[in-house]
């Protein structure tokens, strides 16, 4: 138990890094997800194909492979950024593919009449997407977005495998130094659970506010 108090600072830093990584990745993923989902519902076949290809390619290769590729191999073609930035970008791109699928399912859940009404009023494709369909689509996918947020938090742990000292890597380092695995790993696990609980609460509250009763 003293070990934990002694390394409270380390755990704090690790937790902070995990939260930062997850938050940056989520914001990036939301932007990418909306853009890719827009591509996938656009009337232009080439753009639809591009959106589908993005989702397929990103989802079907393990996150760890993307991280290893970006961290160890991209410097060989002159693309070099610091470890944290690289991991955050890769996570955002990866989660973006999942986000795109969630947003698209939301778009498909919007009643056809909404789009038809928007067009009847003379709105263009992007106007009806931005002002009519997307706001309703995002409201219906609050729950899936929460699940994705939890998935993102858990996936930040993969960054430990390429050398980012976030929560999982911190637990591992403290354990290598102190050799007290039970306490150290259990507290790391509890911190992850706490993060998920927070996300769950935020999701629940948002859902109650945003839900549209049909």
């Amino acid at each position, binding site marked *: 138990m003293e070990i934990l108090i002694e390394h409270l600072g380390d755990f704090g830093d690790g937790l902070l890094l995990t939260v930062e990584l997850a938050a940056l990745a989520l914001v990036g993923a939301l932007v990418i997800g909306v853009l890719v989902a827009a591509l996938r*519902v656009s*009337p*232009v*076949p*080439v*753009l639809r194909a*591009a959106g589908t290809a993005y989702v*397929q*390619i990103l*989802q*079907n*290769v*393990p*996150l*760890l*492979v*993307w991280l*290893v*590729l970006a961290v*160890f*191999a*991209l410097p*060989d*073609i*002159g693309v070099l950024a610091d470890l944290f930035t690289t991991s955050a970008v890769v996570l955002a791109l990866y989660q973006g593919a999942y986000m795109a699928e969630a947003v698209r399912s939301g*778009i*498909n859940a*919007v009643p*056809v009449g*909404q*789009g038809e009404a928007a*067009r009847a009023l003379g709105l263009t*494709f992007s106007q*009806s*997407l931005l002002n009519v*369909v997307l706001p309703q689509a995002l409201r219906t996918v609050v729950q899936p977005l929460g699940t994705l947020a*939890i998935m993102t938090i*858990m*996936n*930040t*742990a*993969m960054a*430990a*495998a390429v050398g980012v000292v976030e929560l*999982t890597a911190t*637990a*591992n380092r403290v*354990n*290598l130094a102190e*050799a007290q*695995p*039970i306490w150290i*790993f259990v507290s*790391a*696990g509890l911190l*992850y*659970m706490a*993060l*998920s*609980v927070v996300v769950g609460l935020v999701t629940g509250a948002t859902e109650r506010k945003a839900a549209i009763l049909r």
Partner: protein
Amino acid sequence: MSSVLFDAPGPRARRRIQITTVVAVIAGAALLWLALRQFAENGQLDADRWAPFGTWPIWRYLAKGLGETALAAVAAIAISIAAGVLLALGRLSPSRWIRLPSTAYVEVVRTIPALLLVYVVLFALPRYGLDLPLFWKLVVPLAVSNAAAFAEVFRAGIRSLERGQLEAGLSLGLTRGRAMRMIVLPQAARRVLPSLISQSVGLVKDTSLGFVVSYAELLYSGKVLANYNGLLIQTYLVIALIYLVINAVLSKLARVLEERDVRSAG
């Protein structure tokens, strides 16, 4: 072709679509050209840096890694599906003493990263005298974490069945266990087959944690190869391509099954 957002295009819309198509193709070509120039400027397009990947020994080596990936994935899938069924039944059990532990297991494990579990098996268990063979150091954490995910899939499947199925079984004089096993589970399993496959794709992706465990599956084999020949970007791109092809085929299978289900239900 129309959807929520657009009607069948008229002549003006068709012209706009054509223009957008041309612009998009040009933009895509420009991106590709930029990427290739980046490769070329750093000498990564030289033929001798790619030639090794046309030779049999390299592919034999990667195929061996792929075989280990498949072995680990199949073992982890088998264990976590079996455990998932038991946990799902546990969560739906009428007895609180079975329901609570099963629920707790699923809810706790679902929020813990697989890598943390891998570190526990690698560095914590040996201190308590449990030093698993390398293969199980990869498979056990994956099975532990995916069992919770499979449990949720099965629970959703069981709950999606009409209550009458179980009730009919009970009224025929079957015990609850036999009614579950003979009537409910077979139907639920068929219903969730697509989800089982997509969860399995996730598990195949998780086996890349062999990179951390030093178990010679596909990604770790790639790491060893890249350290040996120094062709980092080429090796990892080939590895990514192999994962892409295999998982895309599995995902496609899941989608085909899903569509077949929708058709037969509707």
